[in-house]
């Protein structure tokens, strides 16, 4: 019987909305002679390990992105300006069913956890938007130096919740992250908040079929209730 439900953050409990500063950063980079595509590519490449806390800061990622595109200018001002803009590039928006569902599940006696691959500039969101009130454990990749789908990050969450992985239901939108949880013995739930699979086109490597597929969190609660009744 599941004792704990562990959620992913991005596109499961919340989505992010651009603030417009990403575009401003692009203009700044262009003004420094960096082509738009190059900057985009460099920033992306610099983010490969950023969720693991490497580099652990926005400014570190900016420096790496500039190095990636071969920018050899020694402009500290450029680095600072890009850092300022990229730091506030997005703001979180909770899905309408997020708070209600977390409260419902807690009311049913489940322990609730969070496992997120996130960057340093987002790590304070759960607290500042008061999601932490509904959480018994919070594992942020940038703080623990592990990312999904590494087994360790799921096991750490189960450990913090005081349950065995087999007693956990794990909910994520990224197929390979759900599969990672199932590989350590958790029950896997795949959520897709979008109308189609198109946003996940780049995740096409075959992975284990999840135990449940849902579109919104209500379905998860119903499914859990059904299992409990069974």
């Amino acid at each position, binding site marked *: 019987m599941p004792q704990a439900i562990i959620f992913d953050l991005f596109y499961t409990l919340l989505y992010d*909305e651009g*603030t*417009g*500063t990403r575009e*401003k950063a692009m203009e700044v980079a262009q003004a420094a002679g960096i082509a738009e595509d190059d900057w985009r590519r460099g920033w992306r490449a610099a983010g490969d390990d950023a969720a693991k806390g490497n580099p*652990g*800061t*926005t*400014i*570190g990622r900016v420096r790496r992105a500039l190095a990636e595109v071969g920018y050899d200018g020694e402009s*500290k*001002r450029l680095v*600072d*300006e890009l*850092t*300022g*803009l990229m*730091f*506030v590039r*997005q*703001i*979180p*928006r*909770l899905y*309408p069913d997020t*708070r209600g569902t977390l409260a419902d599940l807690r009311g049913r006696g489940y322990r609730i956890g969070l496992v997120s691959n996130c960057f*340093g*500039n987002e*790590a*304070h969101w759960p*607290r*500042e*938007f*008061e999601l932490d009130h509904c959480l018994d454990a919070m594992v942020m990749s940038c703080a623990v130096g592990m990312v999904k789908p590494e087994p360790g990050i799921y096991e750490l969450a189960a450990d913090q919740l005081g349950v065995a992985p087999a007693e956990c239901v794990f909910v994520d939108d990224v197929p390979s992250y759900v599969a990672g949880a199932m590989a350590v013995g958790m029950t896997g739930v795949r959520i897709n908040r979008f109308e189609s699979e198109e946003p996940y086109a780049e995740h096409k490597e075959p992975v284990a079929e999840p135990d449940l597929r849902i579109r919104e969190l209500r379905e998860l609660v119903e499914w859990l209730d059904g299992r409990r009744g069974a």
Partner: protein
Amino acid sequence: MTFRAVIFDLYWTLLYEEETGLNAKAEEVAAAVGVTAEAWHKAWHSTLQASWLGDVSLLGRVRAALKAAGAAEYDGALAEELAGLMGARSTPRLYADVRESLAKVKEMGFPLGLVSNIASYRAGWLKEIELTRFFDTMALSCELGVTKPERAIYLAAVEGLGVKPQECVFVDDVPPYVQAARKLGMATVRINRFGSDEIYREYYDDLDFEADLRIAGLGELVEWLEARRGD
């Protein structure tokens, strides 16, 4: 007295905030629940101290400000949107002389401290712009639950640095914060990045307070420290 440590304020001493343009959007959202731009900013400001003390989250601060502005009924999503906008309405920018000057002061052998009245949702900035690496100790109001000009926040930094207040140089732009440091026996440096006291005059009566040094940029602090070392 020989100085053994230097303690800095953060805002308008080491960094300033650059607007991102989201302020106008926040005003629109507030207007949707009948709060004028003026009333919103006044209400937001009235929640500053609670935010510095770490008593409220960003979302909690928005709720408190909406209440102060007289908005009784609103959707939870509206408060969340407003929180996102207020959190990202500005972004940190270091003054051009900061990294070099802090490095120089460190090279001179001084451990560095930071004493800041800062909200929890801003504290993440320090790490993201790699400012934390300069400091041997940081006394942040949102973590300690105490703000300048109270003694306890200065003493937390002094204790963290393992020195006596009389052995510290304290650098800040806000008159009462400089004066409080002086009362504790610190050598005080008043920095004013604006070229005139006009903006400070709006908030503070006494601008002719005593300070050991008055500067417009950190380069002057470095020179002053170097000259005193030579004595």
